[in-house]
């Protein structure tokens, strides 16, 4: 998936398809990420235990927005030159694969395919897919010696979201 490339190359160069996507995301908007976040939060809170439905919704919402903000500010503090809203947009859209896997897990739970290890497989697919473009996006702004420092929060952010999905 090119993670090693992102970490080791001097200048991160996005592939052709990724560059198209990133160019389009330059006109950022926050409606898409909001919709994705709401759908993820609703999916997870519907499957949560009844005492904790509102807690789960709040947690997912807060984690996603505050998490993206923290990741962005962290990258800026490490010396990246990126705008806050564009990176909120990119990180928000990259949650979409995790939403898809959450939906898959939720639908398959009621069938015979709803086993924990299969959930893990769907989740890891979603996680790897989600981190592809976002790591290239964040990585291209940070210089090479610090790239892992800037990418670790990105992975961590998607890991927290994936773990929340796994629980509920």
């Amino acid at each position: 998936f090119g993670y090693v490339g992102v970490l080791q190359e001097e200048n991160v160069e996005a592939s052709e398809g990724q560059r198209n996507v990133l160019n389009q995301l330059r006109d950022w908007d926050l409606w898409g990420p909001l919709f994705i976040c709401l759908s993820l939060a609703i999916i997870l809170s519907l499957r949560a235990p009844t005492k904790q439905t509102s807690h789960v919704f709040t947690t997912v919402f807060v984690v996603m927005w505050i998490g993206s903000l923290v990741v962005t500010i962290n990258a800026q503090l490490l010396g990246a030159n990126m705008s806050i809203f564009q990176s909120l947009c990119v990180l928000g859209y990259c949650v979409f694969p995790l939403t898809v896997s959450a939906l898959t897990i939720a639908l398959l739970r009621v069938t015979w395919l709803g086993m924990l290890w299969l959930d893990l497989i769907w989740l890891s697919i979603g996680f790897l897919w989600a981190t592809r473009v976002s790591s290239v996006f964040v990585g291209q702004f940070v210089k090479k010696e610090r790239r892992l420092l800037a990418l670790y929060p990105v992975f961590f952010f998607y890991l927290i979201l994936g773990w929340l999905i796994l629980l509920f």
Partner: protein
Amino acid sequence: MSSHFKRDDLFLLDWPRSSPPKRTCCSNTIIAVEVNNNIMSSPPENPFSSGDTDDNNRFDAFQLSPDKTSSRSSLPSLQSIQAAQQQQQMQQQQRAAPSSSQQQQQSTFDNLPSPEELQGPISSTTNNNNDWIPQPSSTANNNINNNINDNQQSSSSILPKFLTCGGALSIESLRPYFDVDTADIILRMKSSIKYCNVPDGFRNEVLYSDNAMRLSAFRESTAAGGEGGETTTAGASTSSSSEVTSVGNVGGGEGKGPDLYGPTWITMTLVFFLAVTSNLSLYFHHSGKQYQSLVDEGGVAAEEEWDYDINQLLHATWILYSFSFLLPMGLYLMFRLMGIISFSVVDLICFYGYSLVAYIPTTWICVAPVSWLQWLSLCISTVVSGMLVLRNVTGPILESAGGGGGVGQGKSGGLIMAVIGCHFIFFLVMKLAFYHHVHH
């Protein structure tokens, strides 16, 4: 007095952006934001100069990164903001006092657009009387309008100042504390375990010496440039550096100083691990009980439903972040009040933050719901992390006690006991709040 000079100082107050650009059809907004973007680069000559802006310009007003601001100087320091504030207050007082000189003063102000008018729709909607074009108006009208404008300017610029605590927490002021590379962070994390028993080891060898650079130069055989520098503090003792100068450090190097990346992300990692492992251990404990009851009662399964507790995440967050940020700040205040000035706040935050590295393997060991194992592993990691903090903190405390500084002998002992006590309380909280299994 040079009104133009004062206006530039007043413009210093506007950064970061004081008025959020609103999506109204009021054309004043667009022009006001456009002028705001150009404030630092040129004096405000004609606010109607460019009538069009692109969306990027409008929304990048929130942007805290320096690429749009590369032409301007760095964020003005707190002193200059306060100086500008004082000047503004003086101007407000002068404007409030009716006098003939004030009218003359206002006429010089009328030549330039007042900074309030550049704020945006908040002040511009009530500012209809004051046009861009200077016109002679009555004194009373100007007085009232300017008073309203001044009040509104001060209220519309409070939010960014509040959010950044008067510039102390802005991106620019925190950036020097994130001036670390991956290799630095890894070295610091390893040293937090390695040097936990060396007096002032972590502080001297990791934070304030260039051992990191020498190590990387030694390993990679490349020239390690001296990146950044922090002055070695007064309390750094070079006697202990002899046992760790395996790389030939000639003492007194300029290291990178304390960083804030390590504490924040180590704490965040630990929060996550705590929440995960405490729920895992409760789950195993519960399923173990179920199995036991199955065996004992011969086939009747326990009816309790095990649910995931999301509150563990919340409790872990506030407990750990107060341990690694609020506690060092409180200790720093205490040290300052007692006259120990060798630490900075970030130093202490670094000690506590990196001391949490010792807890990371422990959280995974504590997944097993075996009580004595949990107590033992938590004990060991508390000892390691406590040693790291103690070894680095007691040096300057005892020095200032012995040298007749601000701390007497008894108080220094008390301070050290307080540090130990905080760690012990943290240890108890970790065990009882997260890994406590109620045995029925």
